[in-house]
């Protein structure tokens, strides 16, 4: 069964925080934006790049508690900004094997305090708190997850997007901060229906997902294909997630795999 996106919400903090915001607080803010009846997940994945500064709390089970208490919940990390992409792949796998019909992914990222230790990579010390909640369902509804893929280099992502561009010319490419204008020009040359949305620097693990959630109402009505693309500046590993809208709930003929 196909996984389809039912709801997407985001939270974004203000710069210059005095102390690191716990992941649990970001989760509280996200869940507060969604009707509990719209959640009730059976699979709940908490994805992040940098660990919680308050690590004794199991935020994944806390999130489960806030959203119905019936989910198989776990944290997924250890991949830099790839964690939410892999969480989506896991959720898609559970849906396609009939093990989940209401998966949920929450991506959280705490800002490093302005006065704090910024000796690590700057990408791992984002300036803003941010979080995204993505609630999914299963079935041939609009906006199914068509593809989630990882590439060891940016070149792999480039090749895959060229295939996508040949198959589908109305794609919205949502590019993370590490992907530059030259990269964008390959797929949306300006004389077709494809468009590019560039995500501003400042977030790391949440970047393209923040854009998706923030623009979801508009994009879900106006676009047909959304490709979320990001390269990890720390490792070069690149990630792609493609969402497809199917007219009247019928699966599109466009095959992206």
């Amino acid at each position: 069964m196909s996984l389809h996106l039912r709801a997407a919400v985001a939270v974004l903090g203000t710069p210059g925080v005095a102390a690191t915001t716990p992941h649990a607080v970001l989760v509280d803010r996200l869940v507060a934006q969604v009707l509990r009846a719209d959640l009730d997940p059976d699979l709940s994945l908490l994805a992040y790049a940098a660990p919680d500064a308050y690590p004794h709390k199991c935020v994944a089970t806390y999130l489960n508690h806030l959203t119905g208490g019936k989910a198989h919940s776990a944290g997924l990390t250890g991949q830099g900004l790839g964690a939410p992409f892999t969480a989506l792949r896991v959720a898609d796998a559970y849906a396609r094997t009939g093990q989940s019909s209401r998966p949920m992914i929450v991506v959280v990222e705490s800002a490093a305090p302005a006065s704090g230790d910024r000796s690590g990579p700057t990408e791992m010390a984002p300036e803003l708190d941010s979080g995204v909640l993505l609630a999914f369902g299963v079935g041939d509804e609009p906006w199914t997850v068509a593809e989630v893929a990882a590439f060891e280099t940016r070149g792999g992502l480039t090749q895959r997007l060229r295939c996508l561009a040949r198959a589908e010319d109305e794609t919205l490419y949502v590019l993370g901060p590490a992907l530059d204008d030259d990269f964008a020009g390959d797929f949306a040359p300006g004389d077709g229906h494809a468009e590019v949305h560039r995500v501003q620097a400042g977030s790391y693990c949440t970047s393209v997902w923040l854009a998706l959630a923030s623009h979801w109402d508009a994009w879900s009505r106006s676009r047909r294909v959304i490709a979320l693309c990001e390269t990890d500046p720390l490792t070069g590993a690149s990630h792609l997630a493609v969402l497809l809208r199917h007219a009247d709930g019928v699966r599109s003929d466009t095959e992206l795999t």
Partner: protein
Amino acid sequence: MASLTDITATRMALTTIDAVECCFPDRVVTVEERAVELELNAAQTHMFRRVQGLDRMHYDPGVNLLDLLLPAARKVLDQASAVRYLVFGQAYHGVPSMAATDTAEEIRRRLGLAHVTAFTLTEQNCAIPLTAIDVAGTLLRADGRPEAQALIVTGDKPRLREAQLVGNTCMVADGAAACLVSLDGPGAVVRSFATAGFGEFSDGMLMPPKQRQASALARPGNLLGVMEEAARRAGYTLDDMQIVIPTNPNTTYWTETVKDPVLRSKFFIGNVPRYSHCLGADVFINYATLRDDKCLTADRPAMFVSIGLGMTFSAMVFMPSSAAEAVQP
């Protein structure tokens, strides 16, 4: 009841556990020697030996996390042919663990695994290995590549004293394990999985006394619930289980948690005195011991159970195989 895998109701390929290996640092200390290192008093030390059932354990502060994890992973990798995923099942998340944010990737790199997706599963403390098996099997099934395999690596080293001495009832020791998961392989067949998370107890070690007491009171029922559900989903009852393979926090934990003496008699706690609690790796270590001692009867259901602070309860029914894993010397 939380997410449940009912393999028997589908016609999909079955998750199999095709190899399990565990490794420990050479250094062995008695519970008294470790108690001195942890600055415990005589009464506390006595409690760990006489009440909690500990005797000795592997512990070496000079062995770093990767040195702990990699030997078991290499032994399993020697038996693998097509690893597609590497899952690091990290017990502690964040500061209490010595794991870095890129530990999964570093394991992948040091094992020389190319074209492998490596990531960390966590936020379940010691319940994480069973979720790792379930996630790995699900990814393989969804990929539609029947030959692909997943390597699960478990084990952790606590950075903080409070995490080395969980609730003053559990001494964390050094031990790591790895597991090879595939579809329809020659190893033990996973028949079902049941798990439930209780986020009202998500503060774990920092729960106030009242909440800690409520968590302890709810624990027997919560565990029995997932065990019965896993057995039912596999088409069995708990009476059918030949053995239950739990984690090794101590011996009294299971006396307090499993009220039915007949069911409790099926719990394998023989490794508590010699290995103590190895974060995230206990169930695989215990499985390897039972396999090596030829204590697993092929084609009779057995069950893994794990409880993770925070609070996750999981149970998995598997069928030991007469091939490969069950007959290894």
